[in-house]
């Protein structure tokens, strides 16, 4: 037995989970209210959101937030696939690769959008 490199994945999982727990419900509620037309029309208007997200501190925070949530979801999905029946070593490696590749893609896409 040797020490695993899982901490690389677990700390982002824990951080993303905490951020998701604290912030996602409110964010989802805002978008839901907007979709239902219950927010003032100016709230999520393009200029307002753009101006706000363009501030460096907000942009960086949003990127970190989204990235950590993505990696939280990817790690949890990988563990859940094991629970759901992916049992043998080869299949486990493949499902892990799929989950983390998807997360990497999403992270790269986010970086590209931000730039």
């Amino acid at each position, binding site marked *: *037995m*040797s*020490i*695993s*490199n*899982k*901490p*690389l994945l*677990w*700390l982002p999982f*824990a951080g993303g989970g905490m951020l998701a727990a604290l912030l996602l419900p409110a964010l989802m509620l805002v978008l839901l209210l907007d979709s239902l037309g219950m927010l003032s029309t100016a709230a999520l208007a393009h200029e307002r959101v753009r101006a706000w997200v363009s501030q460096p501190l907000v942009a960086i925070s949003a990127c970190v937030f989204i990235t950590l949530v993505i990696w939280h979801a990817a790690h949890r999905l990988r*563990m*859940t696939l*094991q*629970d759901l029946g992916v*049992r043998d070593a080869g299949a486990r490696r493949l499902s892990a690769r799929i989950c983390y590749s998807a997360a990497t893609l999403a992270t790269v896409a986010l970086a590209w959008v931000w730039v």
Partner: protein
Amino acid sequence: MNPSPMPVSAVGANALRTITLEVFRFRPEQDPLPSWQTYQVPCREEWVVLDALNYIKDHLDGSLSYRWSCHMAVCGSCGMMINGKPILSCKAFVRDFPDHIRVEPLGNLTVIRDLVVKQERLLANLSAVKSWLIPKTPAAADEPYRQTPVQLDQYRHLSMCINCLLCYAACPQVALNEGYLGPAALALAHRYNLDSRDGGTFERMQATASADGIWECSFVGECSEVCPKHVDPAGAIQQMKLASSLDWFARRLGLGERS
């Protein structure tokens, strides 16, 4: 082959309920496949399922094999699945169960015979995680180690483990991964990690922080739910995940050792 059943009057005027026990049988010398056997047991109101099993063994079917000892939930011998739940049979009061009780050996573990399971899954892993004191500094000859009540309180709940293996039966990861060290072994490693006299956390990490250690746990939490001694192995494992992760980064960033 069965001796004649004990007359009800011999059990006592307080025999209230006749319970149907459906018991898992596995006798490899007779049949390579397991089977079920049903017994009618007149149970007193205060009986536990272990009493019903002892009644079967004494009066109905002496061939039934199972482990038990203290009959008071401290030895950890009599763990079984009773109506699908891992529980000490000496703690499973018949009055809390319906008239039909299904008794099986502890889940996820290899069955040797009837209700007797192999305990190596825990016992071998206790050695793997070095669940013994690795002193920071050896005590001087003839001098005891010193520990304050506050220091004892840090790990005391973890030291209450009676090695009953109920947590192994409750944990799906134990079934999904044969190599997984398991809740009790990891909790007992943490018991020593938290002991103020101990300096062996990093040594234990070779096993606890391996792929078959804490990282197989997905915090289902059922181990802590079924533990008769409130050890909370699930909490212990999460604490180890946090500690191991911080230690992992601290070592690589040259921030010194955290363990």
